């Protein structure tokens, strides 16, 4: 009896499967293996911290991609929500001394609440306005962070001492069978597990009814309203979810770094996230993670190898014509422009093209 090919999709349920094909299941197993083993292989603190920052960035980027990639709303205010999450953790994790799941949840709720508060003002305006209003949000936020001294410590910043204990296990110092794992290794597992969770959550959101509604709004909001999608509500909901995820990223950022100052939540951070979702691929969860790896690791790598890249100043007033900071900024800008002009679907688009080529081989075109 003839069996259908494993790649053939015959009904909607099959189409919705997350890991439908054997190749995808193999990939999942491989990813889990890398997740479990990587920190024990890469023990150097520099690389581990780069990977942790990349993971935190990936969480934030998934949030922004829900809003920008799926709902089509450009937000430059992501840095504001990330900052809010970090300061929330300074209070919830530090002052109140809540355990890990609770300070993460607190940050998510604060982010969602702020998003729900700001969303209605901005999202009833279409297209361009949101970008400009959220741009204002970054500046207003920066002013708040500098002046709400009891919470944020003003210009000098505040320390974040959040507990990293998960039940009986302290992630800062995991002991398994006599083997002690360092803080960075524990944080790697925590952050990347959360990346997986966030990705799963976002994927489930976008492959079901709310996700289809968001994409309908992105493609044509009036048409979406005509077929019964409440565009206003969904936009605000998307904004809230995106802000909540951003706040979680901020919470992790603050707790890992143990110190935050208002200078970090500036426009460049928002632009970095925009660059990530564009480079990774708008409207794909996978792309947000890919983009975070690509763009998020760049500043750290440039900083580390600045002495071998020609023309880069390694110190203030040193040789070279461009500083590390300026080079980062220029690279974000160039990446945004080049990807939008040349490959609007981003790295995820390139990957999908390669995949399709081999899947349909030898009849590829």
């Amino acid at each position, binding site marked *: 009896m003839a069996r259908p090919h494993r790649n053939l999709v015959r009904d909607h349920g099959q189409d919705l499967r997350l890991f439908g094909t054997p190749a995808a299941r193999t990939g999942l197993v491989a990813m889990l293996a890398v997740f479990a083993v990587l920190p024990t292989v890469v023990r150097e603190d520099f690389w581990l911290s780069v990977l942790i920052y990349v993971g935190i960035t990936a969480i934030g980027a998934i949030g922004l991609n829900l809003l*920008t990639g799926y709902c*089509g709303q*450009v937000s*430059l205010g992501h840095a504001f929500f990330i900052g809010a999450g970090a300061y929330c953790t300074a209070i919830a994790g530090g002052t109140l001394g809540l355990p890990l799941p609770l300070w993460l949840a607190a940050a998510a709720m604060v982010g969602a609440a702020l998003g729900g508060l700001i969303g209605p*003002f*901005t999202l*009833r*305006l*279409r*297209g*361009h*306005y949101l*970008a*400009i*209003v959220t*741009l*204002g*949000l970054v*500046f*207003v936020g920066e*002013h708040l962070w*500098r*002046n709400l001294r009891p919470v944020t410590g003003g210009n000098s910043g505040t320390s974040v001492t959040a507990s990293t204990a998960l039940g009986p296990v302290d992630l800062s110092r995991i002991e398994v069978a006599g083997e002690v794992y360092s803080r960075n290794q524990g944080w790697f597992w925590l952050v990347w597990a959360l990346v997986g969770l966030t990705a799963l959550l976002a994927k489930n959101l976008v492959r079901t009814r709310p996700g289809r509604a968001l994409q309908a709004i992105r493609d044509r909001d*009036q048409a979406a*309203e*005509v077929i019964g999608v409440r565009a206003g509500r969904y936009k605000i909901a998307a904004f809230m979810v995106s802000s909540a995820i951003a706040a979680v990223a901020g919470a992790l950022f603050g707790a890992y770094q143990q110190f935050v100052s208002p200078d970090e939540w500036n426009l*460049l951070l928002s*632009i970095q996230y*925009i*660059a990530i979702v*564009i480079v990774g691929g708008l409207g794909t969860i996978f792309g947000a993670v890919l983009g975070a790896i690509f763009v998020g690791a760049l500043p750290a790598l440039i900083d580390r190898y600045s002495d071998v890249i020609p023309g880069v100043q390694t110190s203030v007033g040193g040789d070279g*014509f*461009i*500083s590390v900071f*300026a*080079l980062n*900024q*220029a690279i*974000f*800008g*160039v*990446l*945004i*422009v080049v990807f*939008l*002009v040349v490959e*609007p679907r981003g790295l995820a688009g390139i990957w999908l093209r390669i995949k399709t080529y081999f899947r349909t081989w030898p009849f590829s075109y």
Partner: protein
Amino acid sequence: MTALLQNVFAGLSLGCTYALVALGFVVIYKATGVINFAQGGLLALGAYLGYTFSTSLAMAFAVAVVLACLAAAVAGAAVERIVLRRMVGQPPFAVIMITIGLLFVIEPVITAIWGFENLQVTNPWNIDTVTVGGLVLGVRDLWTIGLTAAAVVGFFLFFRHSDFGLAMRATAFDPEAALAQGISARRVYAVSWAIAAALAALAGITLAAGPGGLSPSIGFIALAAFPAMILGGVDSPTGAVLGGLVIGLVEALTRGYQDHLFAWAGDNVSVIVPYLIMILILLVRPYGLLGTRDVRRI
């Protein structure tokens, strides 16, 4: 009273800078439907070109200003031709992101060429002042207001009474109908960018001649011109000028009375006042003071 007038004068001077930048936003938005975040980059570029002509090449200041505006106009048109032309017909989101990307490219390029140091532009105004009835008026501020008025009047004469201005208005109104009448949309787009860049360059040079001098972050003042554009209405040139002046006045007055009235709001609250005004106007009149009401049927 004198203090109030002094603040109003400072506000007018600042407002003129905003007005020039906002007018540039509106010109590009009307012609191409794009909100140009890279305006600040063009402003900084114009200011640095002004520095090169005026200080490095020791030209007469008036010549330097004109040359810098022309050079910035060419740069603006080139950006439109090389990057934005490819994006015609793409969703507005992608185009906005492109201009944001450009903004973040131009600034490091400027630091790579001219460095980070705060530069002083050779100019005939310096810190000279004239005293009129107890008011101390900076010569630079007077010139800023005068040059802005001249540029705005010139723009409106061009926009309303010249053939090309008519072509621009026609394209803004209906690009396809304009094309059918033989108007080259490409030239309209390029000229719109050139005009916006020249206006931004003028704003940049007058700003750089001021007490703050010239530093790479000078372009960020253009971001505060967004509220001016929104306040006036995104598609109204008159509104942009009006919005710029209002925002400048309110910002200067907030700064002037910071210690008396706004101490509770924290230091430097005047910096975010434009954005607060913008949020307020978006709540009350989303289409701005003079903008066209966006009609939607659903």
